[in-house]
C-alpha cells in the first residue's frame, strides 16, 4: 500500500510542479502577486510530497518487496540493509527520484534566498526551476517510475551491481548528481533576472555568485569523491582516465569555474554582463549534457551503471533549453551592455577574461573528445576510441597554462596597471618558478614536462605564500603579533583569501596529479606463497592466499606482510571477488598511503595453487589530492561567509534619518 501512496505522491508532485511553472511565469509577466505566492507555496510543499515517494521506495527496499520492478532490479535478499541507501540511486528511476527531491530542496533554499532581494526576478527564476523539475518528474511519471509494479512477483531480486558496493558509493553518486543539478540554480537566477524586463543587469550577481560557488563546491566534491572511488575500487592504480562519464562531470565543473571568476568582474565593475549570461547558459547546458551521458548516453564507460534510452530525452531537453535561453539572451542583449569599458589589457578584468577563455577551451575540447566517437559512428559508421593519450596531449597543456594564470592572475590590479607595476607584483613568483626549474634540472632530473609542470606549480605557490607573507608583515608593522596579523589579514578579505585557499587546494591536486602521472612506478610480478620481493625500499612477503565463498561471490585473498626499511607496515590484503550472478570480477586493491607515496597492491590473477600475479604500484603524492578536497571546501566556505558591510548610511548620518521614516 505504501507503494501506491508513493505512486500517487509522484503524480501529484508532477502536476504541482507543472502548475508552479505556469503560475509563476504568468504571475511574473502579469504581475499578479497572489499567483506568485501561490506558486511559491506550491514549491515549498513539493519536497514533502517527494519525501513520501522516497519513503515508499525505501520501505519497499527494506521489506524486500520484489513486486516493485525497481526493487527487484536493484536489490536482493542477500543485500545488506545499509545498501538500501545506495540501491535508492543505483538505477535510473531511483536516481531520477533522488535528483528530483534534492533539486526541490535546493530550489526551496534558492527561492527563500532570493525572494526578498529580487522580488521581480524571483517568479521567473522559480518558473525555470519548476520547469526543470517538471522535466525530471515527467520522466519519472511516464518513463521510469521507481514504484512501478511487476506483473509477477519474483522470489528474489537481481541484486545490486557489486561495483557499487563500496563506501565511496554512499556519497559519490549523490554528491555528483546534486552537483550537476545544482547548476540549475545559478542558471535560473541569472536567466530569471534577465527575463524580468526591468532587471538582468547586476541585480542577481551577489546571490548568483553565492549559488554558483555552492554549485561549484558540490561539483568539485563529486569529482574528487569519484576519483577516490576509482582509485580505491576500480583497482588500476589511477584515479582519472578521461572516460566519457568522468568528462561529463568535468565539463560543467570547468564552465562553473569560469563563471565563479567572471561573476566577480560584474560584481565589481558592472562589466561582462553578456559574457556571464553566456557562461552560465553554457554551464547549464553542459550539466544537462553530463546527465545525458550519465543516464544512458551512447558512450561506453566504466561508470555507466544505469543505461537506457531516456538519455535522448535529456539531449532533447538540453537542446530546447539551450535554444530557449539563447533566444531570451538575444532579445535582452541591449539590456546587458556593460556599465564600463575595459580600461586596460593589463588588469584583473582581462586576466579573468583570459582565464575564462582557457576554461571554456578545455571544456569544449573535452566535449569534442567525448562526442566524437558517437559522431564518427553515426556519420561514418566507424568506431573510434578517444582516450587518455588524446586528452593528455590536447587538454594537458591548457591545464598547465591555467595553472600559470592562477599563479600570476591575482597580482594584476583591478582596472589598470602600468607595466612596471605588473612586473613588480609578479617577479617574485616568476623567480620562484624559474628557480624551481633550475634546481630540479641541476639535481639531474631529465623529465622536461614534469620539470615545467613543477616550475609552474612553484610560480603559483610562491605567489600565494608571498602575498600572505607580505600582507602579514604589513600588519605586523602596525604592532600585531604574527598570528593575529595573519588572521586579521584573511578574515578581512574573505573572498580574496578564501579564493587563495581554494587555489592552494588546486595546487595540491595538481602536484599530486603531476607527480603520480610522471613518477609512478609500476611492476607486475608473479609470486608463490612464501616469496619475498623488494621494490623501492619496500619489502613485501607473500604469506598466504585463501579463498572464501559467500552466497553471492567467491573471494580470493592474498596476505602480505610489508616492511619499509626497519619499519613494519603491517599486513595487507589485496583481494578479488567474483560475483557469480553478475559475472563481474571486482578487484580490491590494498593501499598503504602516506603523504609521500602510496604503496598499492593489485591482484591480477590467482591460480588455485596459490601462485598469483600482482601489480605493485608506487604512486607518489596521491595523498595530497584527497587532502585537497577539505582544503577547497574550507576555502569556498570561507569565501562565502558574509563579511561586515560598510553601509552607505555610515557615511552620511542625516540620510539615515530620512530613511528611517
Amino acid at each position, binding site marked *: 500500500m505504501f507503494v501506491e501512496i508513493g505512486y500517487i505522491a509522484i503524480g501529484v508532485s508532477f502536476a504541482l510542479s507543472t502548475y508552479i511553472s505556469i503560475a509563476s511565469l504568468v504571475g511574473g509577466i502579469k504581475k499578479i502577486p497572489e499567483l506568485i505566492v501561490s506558486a511559491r507555496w506550491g514549491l515549498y510543499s513539493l519536497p514533502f510530497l517527494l519525501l513520501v515517494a522516497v519513503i515508499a521506495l525505501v520501505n519497499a527496499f527494506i521489506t524486500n518487496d520484489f513486486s516493485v520492478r525497481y526493487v527487484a532490479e536493484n536489490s536482493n535478499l542477500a543485500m545488506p540493509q545499509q545498501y538500501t541507501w545506495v540501491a535508492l540511486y543505483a538505477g535510473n528511476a531511483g536516481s531520477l527520484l533522488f535528483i528530483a527531491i534534492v533539486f526541490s530542496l535546493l530550489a526551496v533554499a534558492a527561492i527563500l534566498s532570493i525572494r526578498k532581494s529580487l522580488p521581480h526576478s524571483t517568479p521567473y527564476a522559480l518558473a525555470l526551476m519548476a520547469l526543470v523539475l517538471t522535466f525530471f518528474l515527467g520522466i519519472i511519471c511516464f518513463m521510469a517510475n521507481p514504484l512501478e509494479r511487476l506483473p509477477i512477483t519474483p522470489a528474489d531480486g537481481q541484486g545490486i551491481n557489486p561495483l557499487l558496493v563500496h563506501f565511496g558509493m554512499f556519497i559519490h553518486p549523490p554528491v555528483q548528481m546534486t552537483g550537476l543539478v545544482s547548476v540549475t540554480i545559478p542558471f535560473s537566477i541569472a536567466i530569471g533576472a534577465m527575463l524580468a524586463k526591468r532587471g538582468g543587469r547586476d541585480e542577481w550577481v551577489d546571490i548568483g555568485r553565492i549559488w554558483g560557488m555552492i554549485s561549484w563546491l558540490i561539483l568539485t566534491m563529486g569529482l574528487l569523491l569519484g576519483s577516490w572511488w576509482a582509485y580505491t575500487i576500480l583497482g588500476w592504480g589511477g584515479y582519472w582516465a578521461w572516460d566519457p562519464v568522468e568528462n561529463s562531470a568535468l565539463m560543467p565543473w570547468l564552465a562553473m569555474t569560469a563563471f565563479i571568476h567572471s561573476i566577480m568582474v560584474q560584481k565589481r565593475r558592472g562589466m561582462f554582463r553578456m559574457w556571464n549570461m553566456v557562461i552560465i547558459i553554457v554551464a547549464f547546458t553542459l550539466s544537462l549534457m553530463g546527465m545525458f551521458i550519465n543516464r544512458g548516453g551512447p558512450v561506453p564507460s566504466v561508470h555507466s551503471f544505469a543505461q537506457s534510452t531516456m538519455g535522448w530525452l535529456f539531449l532533447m531537453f538540453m537542446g530546447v533549453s539551450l535554444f530557449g535561453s539563447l533566444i531570451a539572451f538575444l532579445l535582452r542583449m541591449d539590456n546587458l551592455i556593460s556599465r564600463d569599458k575595459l580600461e586596460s589589457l593589463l588588469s584583473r578584468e582581462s586576466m579573468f577574461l583570459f582565464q575564462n577563455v582557457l576554461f571554456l577551451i578545455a571544456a569544449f575540447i573535452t566535449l569534442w573528445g567525448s562526442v566524437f566517437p558517437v559522431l564518427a559512428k553515426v556519420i561514418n559508421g566507424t568506431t573510434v576510441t578517444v582516450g587518455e593519450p588524446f586528452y593528455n596531449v590536447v587538454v594537458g597543456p591548457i591545464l598547465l597554462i591555467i595553472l600559470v594564470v592562477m599563479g600570476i592572475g591575482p597580482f594584476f590590479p583591478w582596472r589598470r596597471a602600468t607595466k612596471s607595476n605588473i612586473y613588480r607584483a609578479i617577479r617574485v613568483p616568476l623567480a620562484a618558478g624559474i628557480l624551481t626549474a633550475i634546481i630540479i634540472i641541476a639535481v639531474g632530473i631529465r623529465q622536461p614536462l614534469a620539470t615545467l609542470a613543477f616550475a609552474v606549480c612553484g610560480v603559483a605557490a610562491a605567489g600565494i605564500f608571498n602575498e600572505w607573507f607580505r600582507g602579514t608583515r604589513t600588519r605586523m608593522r602596525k604592532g600585531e603579533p604574527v598570528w593575529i596579523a595573519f588572521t586579521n589579514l584573511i578574515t578581512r578579505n574573505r573572498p580574496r583569501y578564501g579564493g587563495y585557499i581554494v587555489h592552494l587546494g588546486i595546487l595540491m591536486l595538481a602536484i599530486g596529479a603531476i607527480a603520480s602521472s610522471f613518477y609512478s612506478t609500476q611492476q607486475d610480478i608473479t609470486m608463490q606463497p612464501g616469496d619475498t620481493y623488494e621494490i623501492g625500499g619496500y619489502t613485501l612477503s607473500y604469506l598466504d592466499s585463501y579463498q572464501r565463498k559467500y552466497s553471492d561471490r567467491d573471494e580470493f585473498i592474498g596476505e602480505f606482510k610489508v616492511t619499509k626499511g626497519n619499519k613494519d607496515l603491517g599486513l595487507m590484503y589485496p583481494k578479488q571477488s567474483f560475483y557469480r550472478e553478475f559475472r563481474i570480477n571486482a578487484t580490491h586493491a590494498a593501499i598503504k598511503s602516506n603523504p609521500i607515496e602510496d604503496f598499492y597492491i593489485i591482484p591480477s590473477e590467482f591460480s588455485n595453487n596459490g601462485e598469483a600475479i600482482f601489480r605493485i604500484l608506487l604512486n*607518489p603524492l596521491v595523498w595530497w589530492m584527497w587532502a585537497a578536497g577539505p582544503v577547497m571546501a574550507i576555502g569556498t566556505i570561507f569565501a562565502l561567509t558574509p563579511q561586515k558591510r560598510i553601509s552607505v548610511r555610515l557615511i552620511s548620518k542625516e540620510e539615515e534619518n530620512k530613511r528611517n521614516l
Partner: protein
Amino acid sequence: MIPAIFFTAITVSCSSTVDVPYSVERANKLNETVMCPVCPGESIDQSQNPLALQMRDIIKDKLNQGWSDQQIKDYFVEKYGPSILLSPPRSGVSLVVWVIPPIIVVLSLLILIMAIKSMRRNKVRSDGLEQINPSPEKISEYSKTLEKIINEP
C-alpha cells in the same frame, strides 16, 4: 625560494624510487594505449580482466621478440579494428578529432580578441552617474570620510 626547494624535494623523492627496466616501462606505456575490448572504457593497463592480462602478455612477448611499438599497435588494430587504440590514429576519419581542438583554440582566442576589442570601445550603458559633476571639495570630503571608514580596524 621555499617553493623551489619544496618542489625539488618532491621531484627528487619521486624520481629516486625504483629503476624499472626499460622494457617493462615500454610495455606499460604501450598497455596504456590499447583498450581492453570487453571492458567499457578501460585500457588493458587498467583492467584486470583475463583478456586484458592475456593482451598484456602478448605485448610483453612481442617486445621480447624485438617488435617495434608501431608494429604491435598495428597487430592489435588488425585483430580488433582501429577502435582498439585509445589514441585515435592521425589519419582518415580520426584525423578530424585531432584537427578540431587547435581550431577550437584559435576560434576561442579570436573570440577573446573580439570581446576585448568591443569592451575597449566606448560603447557602454551609462546609468547617468557620470553626468553628475561633484565639486572637488565634495570629492575630497567624501573620500576622506570613506577612507576613515575603510581603514577602521
